[in-house]
Structure formats: C-alpha cells, structure tokens
C-alpha cells in the first residue's frame, strides 16, 4: 500500500515536472518571437518612409536580379515576416507554428539579399534567430522539455557567439583600434545621449582619446565573448548575452535595438534551461 502511494506520488511529480517543462518550452518560444517582432517593428516608421523612397526613386543595378530590386517585393517580404511571427504565435498548433517559422526565415533570407535591405543588420540577426525558431518549433512537441531547453540554450549561445565574433574580427584593424571610425560615426556629431553628454563635458582632444578607448572596449568585449559565450553555463551565458546586447544599443544608438532585440530574446532562452 505504502509502495503504491509512493509510486503514485512519483508519477504525479513527473507529470507536474513535465507540464512545467512544457510551459517553459512555450515561454522560451514566445520570448524569442517577441524579441524578433520588437526588433523588426522597432523601425516601423523608418521602414514606412523607406517604402515611399523606394517607390519614388527606383535604382537600377544589374548586380541584383530585377525581383530583388523591386520596391513591391521588399515591402511584402517585410509584411509577410511580421505576419508569420504573429500567426505562428497565435496559431498554437504545432504545424502552424512550424510552417510560419519556415515562412518567416524564408522572408528574412529574401530581405537579406534585397537591394533595399541587404545592408541592414536587422535582417542578418533576425534570420539567424528565425532559423533557431524554425528548428525549435519542429522539436517542441517531440522532445523531453528539459532536454530540449538545454539543447536550445546551447544553440542560442553558439549563434550569439558567432554574431559577436563577426563584430569583433572585422574590427581587428587599425581604423577601429585607433578609434578613428567610432570618432567619426558617433563622437563627432551623433545626436544621442552618451555622445551629447561627452561633447558637452570634454574638449575635442579628450573626446578623441575617449573614442579610442570606447572602440577598444567594444573590440575587447566582442572578442572575449565571441570566443567564450558558448562555453559558459546556460544561465550565466544568458545573463552576459542579454547584458551585452542590451548595452551595445544603449551605449551607442537607440536604433540598434532593431538589430539586437532578437538577440536579447535568443540569449534569454538560457534562463529556461535546467541541470539534469
């Protein structure tokens, strides 16, 4: 009798743990999709203005196929991406979620090679995060929740490391080490609270020195975490990832949240992982 009670309790605990795990899986999915949506909608008014510009002044360049120069296709790819995220989240059914995730990844891949949007890193980070979403949706109803969350957290760390490494390696060049690039882009004229404050309080010579150390700080952080983030335990990596991606935009350019909101969401997946 006592043995039957004990095994019933163990069974109930297992079910409870499994339910809690499933809720965590859905929460991880939602937080990443919210990050993606916020990032893509962050520059909504800018993209609306851009849409008008692309329609009014088409630029013919034989490098791009005509359908990747069209103002219509870039507009629809953007709208389809947002629509697929909303439908995927609202759809709830596993198949709907997976199909929507595949559509959003395909639309973002399109935006990444379109003449009007190839340069906007919003679409590069969003594509990698959507690829993660695409994979995650195919496993949500199949895998044991905690096992899945541990794998999901590892993949999110690997992607975040690669994104940081991409930023770091391209800056291992004298123009960034000297601070010349950031001085010209941000310190000289950029209307943003950090640079306005520094311009108000320091003379041009000190400002130039600050630009050098600001640039070296960026290189050091991107390099350090580009190499190590994927090796850290899930929760610690999540905390560092969220803090780094949040601070990059906070300390340089508010519009950068369009690029980094999805990375913040992706890094947060680590908070849902659990030791076995």
């Amino acid at each position, binding site marked *: 009798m006592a043995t039957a009670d004990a095994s019933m309790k163990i069974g109930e605990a297992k079910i409870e743990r499994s339910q809690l795990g499933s809720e965590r899986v859905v929460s991880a999915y939602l937080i990443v999709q919210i990050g993606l949506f916020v990032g893509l909608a962050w520059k909504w008014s800018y993209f609306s203005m851009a849409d008008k510009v692309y329609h009014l002044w088409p630029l013919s360049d034989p490098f791009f196929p005509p359908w990747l120069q069209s103002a219509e296709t870039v507009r629809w790819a953007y709208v389809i991406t947002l629509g697929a995220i909303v439908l995927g989240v609202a759809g709830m059914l596993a198949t709907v979620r997976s199909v929507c995730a595949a559509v959003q990844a395909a639309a973002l891949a399109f935006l990444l090679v379109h003449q009007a949007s190839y340069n906007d890193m919003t679409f590069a980070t969003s594509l990698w995060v959507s690829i993660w979403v695409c994979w995650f949706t195919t496993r949500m109803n199949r895998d044991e929740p905690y096992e899945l969350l541990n794998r999901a957290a590892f993949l999110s760390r690997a992607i975040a490391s690669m994104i940081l490494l991409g930023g770091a390696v391209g800056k291992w060049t004298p123009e960034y080490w000297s601070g*010349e*690039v950031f001085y010209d882009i941000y310190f000289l004229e950029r209307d943003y609270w950090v640079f306005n404050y520094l311009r108000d309080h320091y003379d041009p010579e000190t400002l130039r020195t600050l630009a050098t150390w600001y640039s070296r700080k960026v290189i050091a952080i991107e390099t350090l975490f580009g190499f190590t983030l994927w090796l850290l335990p899930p929760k610690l990596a999540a905390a560092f990832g969220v803090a780094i991606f949040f601070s990059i935009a906070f300390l340089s350019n508010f519009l950068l949240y369009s*690029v980094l909101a999805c990375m913040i969401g992706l890094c947060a997946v680590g908070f849902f992982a659990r030791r076995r």
Partner: protein
Amino acid sequence: MDGNEQNSERRRDPLFVAILLAVCGASIWLLLLPFFSTVARISLKRFHLATESFPLWCVQAPIPSMYNFGNQYEIRDLPEDLITPVLDSRRPRYINHYPSRIVTFANGRYALLQPGQDRWLTYWSSYRGQKLETKVHIKPLGNGRFEYVRQSSEFIDPKDVDFVLSGAN
C-alpha cells in the same frame, strides 16, 4: 513505439546538426579573415557589391559583419576630374558597414536622388593593409528612375589613398 525507439527519435535531430555546422562554418570563415588575404578580399568585395557573382555574394550575406572594416565614402555632384562643390566637401566620411548603402538605403537614397541629378560616388573599405576602392556613377534616367553604373572596383595601395584623403582635409 518502445522507449528505445522514442529515445533514438529524439536524438535524431538533423536540423540542429545542420544549424550548428552552419554556425561553425561561418565562425571558421570569420577567423580566417585576418590571416588570409584572399578571404579579406572576398569580404571587402562583398561590402562594395563587387563580388564576381551574385550567388557567391548571397552565400556570404548571413555572415555577421556589424561595424566591420574601415569604410569611407565620398560624394561628388560633378565627375572626379573637375573641381567640384562636393555635397559634403569637408572630407570623406566613415560609415559602419556596406558603404554602398549611402545610395541604396532609404535615407541616403532620398538625399542623393531626390534632386534628380548625376552623382559620382567613391567608396573605400580597408582591412589590415588591404584597401578596395570602388567608383560609381548614379545616372538619372528620367521619371525618378536612376541607374547604378559601376565604373571601377580595384584593390589599391592604402598609402596612395591616405595621401589623397589627407590632401582633401
């Protein structure tokens, strides 16, 4: 389906492996950048839309490259050989990535094309001693349409350009 089959079904996750391989591939490519001039040249050409083929350019598109390389641009409203009232006459300016965005992306396209005139652009991107220079003519075709005419795109000696740029100050 017994427990073992369920476990092996769970473990079979080819998409996970494929994504991880793609991440590793992109990371290895990035780490080759400072050590192999060929990789640097391919990446610099990517930033100038000067890659030999469009599919090769597309393959590189997902490789993260935020604020990479020393990218500069200069805009002229007359051809290079003429002394010209340049739009931004002070000096060439730095730009975060893809210097070609100055005319293809929204705000730059508006600023440069809205007056309806010819523009001559020069971009430079440099990385650890390699410098790519690209010259482009933006030609009005009428009714708001423009043509992006690539005049040249070649690697040059960085010292030559530094001399020219310091002369422009």
